[in-house]
C-alpha cells in the first residue's frame, strides 16, 4: 500500500472520529442529566410537586442539562456533521 493511500485512509479515519465526537456531545450531555437525576432525585421537583411554587416546578437543574443536550443534538449537531462530511468529501 502506498504512503499516499495510508495517509488518506488515516485522514478519513481521523475525520470520522471528529464527526462521531460531534454526534456524541448531545447524547452525552443528556445522559449526564439523566444520571444526575437518578443520583439526586430530590432535585426533580416534579416528582414531588405538592406545595411547590412556580420556579421550583419549572427550573430543575437535571432537566436543564438534558434540555441543553437536546438543543445541541437536534438543532446544532446535525448541521455541523453535514458540513463536516461535505468538507471531507471535498464539497
Amino acid at each position: 500500500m502506498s504512503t499516499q493511500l495510508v495517509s488518506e485512509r488515516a485522514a478519513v479515519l481521523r475525520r470520522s472520529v471528529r464527526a462521531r465526537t460531534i454526534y456524541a456531545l448531545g447524547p452525552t450531555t443528556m445522559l449526564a442529566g439523566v444520571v444526575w437525576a437518578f443520583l439526586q432525585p430530590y432535585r426533580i421537583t416534579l416528582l414531588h410537586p405538592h406545595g411547590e411554587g412556580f420556579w421550583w416546578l419549572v427550573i430543575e437543574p437535571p432537566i436543564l442539562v438534558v434540555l441543553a443536550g437536546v438543543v445541541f443534538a437536534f438543532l446544532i449537531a446535525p448541521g455541523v456533521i453535514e458540513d463536516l462530511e461535505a468538507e471531507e468529501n471535498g464539497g
Partner: protein
Amino acid sequence: MQPPAEFVHWMFATGFLLLGLCLLAQAVVGDEVWRRRPWRTYLWPGLAFLMGVLMWPVMVFFTNSTIHMVAHGSWAQVMMLAGGAELGLVRGKLHSRYWRLTMPLAFLVSGASFLIHEQNSWLFARSAFLHHVIGWTMIVGAVFPFVATFRPRSAVWRSGFALTFVVLGVLLYCDRDVAPIFGHISSQAGTPHR
C-alpha cells in the same frame, strides 16, 4: 414572581453549558466547517453577548449590597465586551486578532469579582466554597483563551477554553440555598433543603 437567586444561577449555568458545547464543537471541526453557515458563526459570540445583557437585570434585582452590584455589573460589562468583540471579528468589522484578548480579560475580571465579592472564608458553606472555586477556576482558566489567541488552530487550548465554560456551568448548577458542603451549617443559617 421573582425567582430565588439559585434559579438564576441554574439558568446561567445552562447558558454556559450550551456555550461550552458550541465552543467544543467548533474546536473539534475547525473554523472553516463551523463558519459554513452564517447563523452558526454568530451563535456563541451572540450567546455570550446576550448573557452579558441579561446580567444587567440580575445586577438590578438580585444584589443586596454595593459590592454585589459592582461584581455583577463587572460581569455584565466584560461578557458584553468579549461577546461583542468576537461578533465584530466574525462579522469583519474588527480585524486585529488581539481583540480576542477581551475573553481572557473577561475571565480574569470575572474570577477576581467572584473572589473579592465573597469575602468571608466560610468554606464549609456551599455558597462561599463555590464562589472561591469558581473564582480560581476563572482565573486559572484564563490561560486557555489567552494562549488560543496566539495559537488559534490549537485544538488543545480551544478545547480547554470550551471545557472551562462546561466546568463553570457545573459549578453554577451546584449552587443551592444553604445546603452544606463540609460539615454542618450553623442553625442560624436556616433550614437546609435540596
